[in-house]
């Protein structure tokens, strides 16, 4: 599991209070108990703190749409990471 | 992009059959509604227009709002005149002008009595739009030209409204209720108009006879100033409506050009209602201005009568609310107006 995914697993376990949660890219609001509107905000705040990033309104909204999964979050963080590395 | 799968004949037929059913469905419903359902909103305007057609040649017309609706033909017939009461509820100035214009376009009208209510001119157009624009014959181009109703684009809108009347899809709900009422054996509602166009308030008269009519409740002036913001509403511009002024000036010009004899009269109210207006300095000032405007039109064969000049005809006891009257008052008002008209016609030419 990549570093991003490992850290996200920790975030998910803390936010959704499930120490046995196994992070997968296809996790979504239907498969994770507690991932409702409130849970989504707590997830965003915890992710921002864990990775030192700040997500935009559009990105947060996109993550909650039907069909979007934890993998979307991973790709978002990867993009931010590579954009940060490109800036030097 | 890959080419789509070719559709087989059966699939194609089913698709287009479904499209055809969808496209035809509203027209079938509309036709069914038209065939089964009575008109959902027969306006007073449409009813009056039909009555006028049945009346035959009319030479004396009374136009105005609901405050003139109880005036009957009796006094006018005594001078050999053929009278019709065109009063309708809630008339705006443009409606009043159109009433007369329509009557003139259809009948050899030589005399006009115009009932005028002060409150109808104190804001832009009291009802913001006439509620009678849909009355079929009021849309005659010559008639539209009189009141300055815009043509062109509005004419197109009116044609589109005609189409709606032909295919009233939206009346499906009223069709359901109509079928329900018919199957339960209910009779359609009766009309209250008399052949001369005046009205009998039969239910109210019955209540009065049985001592059940609550005069105190219905005569309260507040009913006619029934919005909490009435002063803001009536004093919105703080002046008489300039459009209504123009309209009446144009009407009076036309009356003079046509050689019609006209009596315009201020509709009367109960003493309480009158005090309500006098008690408000702005309304009182506007009413004085309004009276002065119409007095200025009084010359030649046009005469304006203020409410005070016909005071003797009104009895407070005949008022069923602050502005509407029945019984002997209606007869006396009709007689007074007929007399004024007769004298004016004899002296003005």
């Amino acid at each position: 599991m990549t570093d991003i995914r490992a850290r996200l697993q920790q975030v998910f376990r803390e936010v959704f209070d499930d120490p046995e949660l196994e992070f997968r890219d296809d996790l979504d609001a239907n498969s994770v108990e507690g991932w409702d509107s409130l849970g989504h905000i707590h997830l965003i705040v915890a992710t921002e703190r864990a990775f030192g990033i700040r997500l935009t309104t559009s990105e947060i909204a996109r993550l909650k749409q039907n069909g979007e999964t934890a993998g979307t979050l991973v790709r978002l963080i990867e993009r931010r990471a590579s954009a940060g590395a490109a800036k030097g | 992009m890959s080419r789509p799968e070719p559709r087989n004949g059966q699939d194609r037929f089913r698709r287009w059959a479904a499209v055809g059913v969808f496209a035809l469905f509203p027209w079938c419903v509309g036709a069914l509604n038209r065939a089964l359902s009575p008109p959902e909103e027969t306006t007073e305007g449409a009813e009056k227009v039909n009555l006028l057609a049945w009346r035959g040649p009319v030479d004396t017309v009374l136009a105005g709002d609901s405050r003139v609706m109880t005036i009957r033909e009796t006094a006018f017939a005594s001078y050999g005149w053929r009278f019709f009461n065109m009063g309708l509820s809630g008339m705006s100035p443009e409606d009043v002008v159109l009433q007369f214009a329509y009557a003139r376009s259809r009948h050899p009208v030589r005399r006009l009595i115009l009932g005028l209510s002060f409150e109808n001119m104190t804001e832009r157009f009291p009802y913001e739009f006439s509620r009678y624009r849909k009355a079929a014959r009021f849309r005659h181009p010559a008639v539209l030209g009189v009141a300055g109703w815009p043509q062109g684009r509005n004419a197109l809108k009116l044609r589109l409204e005609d189409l709606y009347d032909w295919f009233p899809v939206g009346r499906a709900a009223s069709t359901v209720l109509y079928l329900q009422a018919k199957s339960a054996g209910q009779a359609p509602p009766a009309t209250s108009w008399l052949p001369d166009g005046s009205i009998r308030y039969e239910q109210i008269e019955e209540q009065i006879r049985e001592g059940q009519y609550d005069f105190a409740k219905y005569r309260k002036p507040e009913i006619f100033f029934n919005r909490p913001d009435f002063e803001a509403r009536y004093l919105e511009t703080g002046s008489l409506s300039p459009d209504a002024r123009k309209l009446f000036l144009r009407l009076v010009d036309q009356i003079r050009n046509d050689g019609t004899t006209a009596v315009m009269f201020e509709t009367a109210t109960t003493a309480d209602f009158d005090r309500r207006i006098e008690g408000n300095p702005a309304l009182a000032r506007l009413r004085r201005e309004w009276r002065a405007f119409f007095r200025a039109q009084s010359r030649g064969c046009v005469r304006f009568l203020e409410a005070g000049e016909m005071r003797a005809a009104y009895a407070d006891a005949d008022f069923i609310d602050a502005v509407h009257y029945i019984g002997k008052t209606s007869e006396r008002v009709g007689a007074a107006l007929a007399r004024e008209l007769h004298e004016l016609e004899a002296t003005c030419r």
Partner: protein
Amino acid sequence: MSLLHPAMFLLLSAALILLSLERVGRWRGQVLLSLSLAFLALEYEFDMASLGALAAMVGVHYLTVRCMLRTASPSARGWLFWLWFAPCLGVFAVLKHYQWLTGDRVARIVSPELVTVGLSFLLFRQIHIAVSAMHGSVSALPFVEYLTYNLAFWTFLAGPIQRFDDFREQFGRLAGSASVTSRTVIGSLNRALLGMLKMFVLGRLLQRASGLEPFLADPGYGSLARLLAAYPLYLYVNFSGYCDVMIGLARAVGFKLPENFSSPLLARNPVDYWNRFHITLSEFFRDYVYYPLQLAFERRGFRAAALPAAALSSFALMGAWHGNRAGFVVFGLVHGMGVAAAFGWRSILRARLGKDGLRRYMDSLGIRIAATACFQLFWVLSFLPYQFDGEQLGRIFATVRTL
């Protein structure tokens, strides 16, 4: 012009036929746009002033977004957004007669009687594109797509509020002549026809049954129940019927619109309700008001206040969007409080029952029925300020006291 008008039916039928023709092929997008412009002309009754105002709204927005797309600097894009949004909101408030916001004098000076049908929903689509452009989520804005997104007849009047990404995907499919099976066409048109019956028969019957006069004329528990329930049911049936017509029609030609309703009468609490009723609207306010507000509080460590503050603010705003009377804001606040209370109750249950206990509680049929019944009562009562002004409410309460 009403949707009931034969000219509208002609247009919807023409749209269905033209967009179903194989020959139209890759021109479907342009055909959809042309039909939408014709629809607008009819809807606005050829009023040039109103159509001009609409064109100005769209034109100004398009230019603003194009400028944003050419600007690399996030702060410059932010400035452009606010330079557009603030005046736009002011114009909207004037056109929609929010006199408590704009004042009487402005309303009198700048208050032509323009047709404003569909502008509330147009504003949402414009905000969505502008925010996305501000955040760099939109890279290209082809004019035909942009115009069709804003003016498409099947979403113009009252939604559903579709996101631009989703629209572009569907628009591409439409223009790409993707085939629609007969089964889909039949199912979709069946839905549209049922939607018409809902709107034009059931909805109208419910509308006739609603209103104050029948209750005041004949006060009783039966007429009280009708007073409370008829209007909310009418709103639901009428609006969901409209959505069925538009979603069904679009689906029949291969264009998928988002769903707006999901059995809202089965909702067990306000949170559940707003995930089932006018879904695209609640998602819009969630994404553009609720989330930003809640995040703002949470990021600054005010976790306890975050949810109530965000819920009350976003629902009050949503209420105000419905109309210019105070009653609409009260309606919004009531639902905001309901949402906050529902989340709070869930937290209490979670703390008391644990995760498994909470799951059993949520799965219990008896509790679900009771919760749904309680919510139905909350729902009909919440529509009282929506439907009636202060004076009418006073008369209702006075009459209820006599029962």
